[in-house]
């Protein structure tokens, strides 16, 4: 009779199956929403603006002349200086400023002349020269101008340079360490930006769920842990789609820009593994922060509450990121170990480590530890949710804010 009503199509879902039902719904709902278009375009705006600004800046730089050295000497000295400049320029190139004759006057006034692009004025005489200019400029030109004057004083042909045999090597220890640090830092920054951008989306997704009142249907049908996990995985999958799109656009920009974009040095574990670690540590970092945001979302009932509660977490995440960056310079010390063990900084620290250290086994341990932390945060978040959100107290009972629920004193039992 009644038992026969449960047909072959219906069966008890495992927690993972239940999570996948939520993940599938959320993934497609977000993917086919207008929000996703804005989500995709969001990071592209700064990139496009940056590229445009860079292009305009470069164009402006090209149009603006390099600062020149104004020569306020007598005619003979000016000629000698010009000849010396002609002799030295092939060897020194851009290190030697271009020179321009300036009518004798007050050097300070000449420097204010907007019609010329003078960085400094050389006055006095070749034997007793005076260089007038801003502190930075005269410090920068002191050496080259001294060399130029010495050449002008010297009689005869310039000395022959001995031929230097050039033997390039692939690398040196100092160079490798320094360049891999650059890769590590770049990786950390990219990881941080992506995680911060995407983890917040989980929060707004949960608040929306509360708003449309579907959450009680979900909570009655499947464990809250599955709801949370499903939402995290859906957003992770959405993030991956976003990253693929952004990488595609980034690749196109790179191809279009050619050599003007610097290439990062190869990381210690090699590029393929480094990229794989990037995906894994992004996922872990995202899941960690996302689970924390979900726990916060479970406490909040309004968007305003969500903003109030998530702001300190965002700030703390920034601190954690700076800490992980600092730990880069403290390899082997307790600082690095703490950064690796603290769940929220662990993905950053380990991703950076992949850039500078080829040993692989610590990554397996770290990924396991981070996964366990995710499970812990999801469980805590789900419990908080069941404890604080799914309730309908007696009519007239005063609602307490999320802050009060977290830190306020408990009301005495009635």
């Amino acid at each position, binding site marked *: 009779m009644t038992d026969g009503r449960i047909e072959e199509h219906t069966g008890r*879902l495992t927690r993972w199956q239940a999570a996948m039902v939520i993940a599938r719904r959320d993934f497609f709902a977000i993917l086919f929403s207008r929000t996703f278009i804005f989500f995709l375009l969001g990071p592209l705006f700064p990139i496009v603006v940056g590229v445009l600004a860079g292009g305009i800046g470069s164009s402006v730089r090209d149009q603006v002349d390099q600062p020149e050295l104004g020569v306020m000497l007598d005619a003979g000295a000016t000629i000698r200086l010009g000849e010396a400049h002609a002799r030295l320029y092939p060897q020194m190139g851009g290190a030697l400023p271009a020179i321009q004759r300036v009518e004798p006057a007050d050097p300070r006034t000449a420097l204010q002349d907007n019609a010329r692009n003078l960085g400094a004025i050389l006055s006095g005489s070749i034997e007793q020269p005076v260089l007038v200019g801003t502190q930075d400029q005269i410090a920068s030109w002191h050496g080259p101008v001294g060399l130029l004057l010495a050449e002008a004083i010297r009689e005869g042909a310039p000395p022959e340079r001995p031929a230097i045999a050039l033997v390039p090597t692939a690398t040196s220890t100092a160079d490798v360490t320094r360049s891999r640090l650059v890769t590590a830092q770049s990786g950390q920054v990219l990881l941080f930006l992506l995680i911060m951008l995407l983890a917040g989306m989980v929060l707004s997704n949960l608040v929306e769920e509360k708003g449309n009142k579907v959450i009680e249907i979900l909570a009655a049908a499947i464990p809250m842990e599955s709801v949370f996990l499903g939402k995290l995985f859906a957003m992770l999958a959405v993030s991956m789609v976003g990253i693929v799109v952004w990488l595609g656009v980034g690749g196109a920009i790179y191809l279009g820009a050619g050599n003007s974009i610097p290439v990062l040095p190869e990381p210690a574990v090699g590029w393929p593994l480094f990229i794989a670690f990037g995906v894994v540590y992004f996922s872990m970092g995202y899941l960690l922060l996302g689970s924390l945001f979900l726990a916060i979302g479970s406490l909040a009932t309004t968007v305003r509450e969500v903003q109030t509660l998530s702001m300190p977490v965002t700030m703390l995440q920034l601190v954690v990121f700076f800490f992980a960056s600092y730990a880069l310079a403290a390899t082997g010390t307790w600082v690095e170990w703490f950064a690796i063990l603290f769940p929220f900084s662990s993905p950053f620290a380990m991703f950076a480590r992949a850039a500078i250290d080829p040993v692989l086994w610590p990554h397996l341990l770290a990924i396991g530890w981070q996964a366990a932390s995710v499970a812990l945060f999801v469980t805590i978040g789900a419990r908080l949710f069941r404890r604080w959100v*799914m309730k309908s107290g007696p009519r007239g009972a005063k609602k307490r804010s999320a802050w009060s629920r977290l830190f306020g004193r408990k009301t005495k039992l009635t």
Partner: protein
Amino acid sequence: MVHKLAIEAEGLLKRFEGTLAVSGVDLAVPEGAIYGILGPNGAGKTTTIRMLLGIIDPDEGWRTLLGSDDPVSMAHAVGYLPEERGLYPAMKAYEAIAFMGALRGLSLDEGRRRGRELLEGYGLGYAADRQVRQLSKGMAQTVQLLGTLVHRPRLVVFDEPFSGLDAINQGKLELLIRDLAKEGTTVIFSTHVIAHAERLCDEVAIIAGGEVPFAGPVDEARDRIRPRVRLETAARDGRWRDALPEGTRPEGAFWNFELPETGVEPLLRALIEGEAGIQSLSIERAGLHDAFVEIAGEAAARQLEADMAHEVGSETR
């Protein structure tokens, strides 16, 4: 006859931030029954239902749902329509039904097929491909109701299902509940409208102030109040009046009084032997409303009436 229990609960207690929401709830819902949870708004009906379904855990007490003490593990055999209706606005109607089935373990393909079938059956086939946001409130409520039933559950729980429905749809829902029960499905619903419970329920739990002063068959609740006797006599006085409860006064030709504890037979004998000249005699059994007043108290009854008036007012507006 011993019934298997769809739900059994004992001593359920829930506090929210120190405020006692539900205190010491004992329930036993037989399989296949239509069971009402009756009480005014804020009495603890929703909290009780949420505890029974495992949406929240009780602070004290225990419950079993379809024999399991982990209610969520039986979700595939349960349908639940919460008081606050909610659907994803961007979902199509049949997809929304399929999704609710998927949450309960029904395959999506089968859910979609049944979703279209159910919508057709309810005369909403034309709206199957419409997004929920494009449906009227009543249509959206029907979609959610069908989503609650799509996986053909053994136990269906409706929290205030009649709220916000017009009279026609209330009638349709009553019919649906009866049909479900005929098919062997256990139906539990909460309500603050006594008439629904009286018409539909085999058993009720009366809940007021977070406590359940009565849980059992509707007849048992009504039997808490002695039946009223309405007697019309030819004689105005005589020995027969000794059989009437003390202080009973005539109202025209009629006498209204509570049936004596000794029952109807001794009363009849005394009236006949005393030559009362019985013109008419009717015994009126107490209604559920009177039983509610008796069991839950005047204040709870007044609250219940105020809730009903408020709802009627809202619908009129």
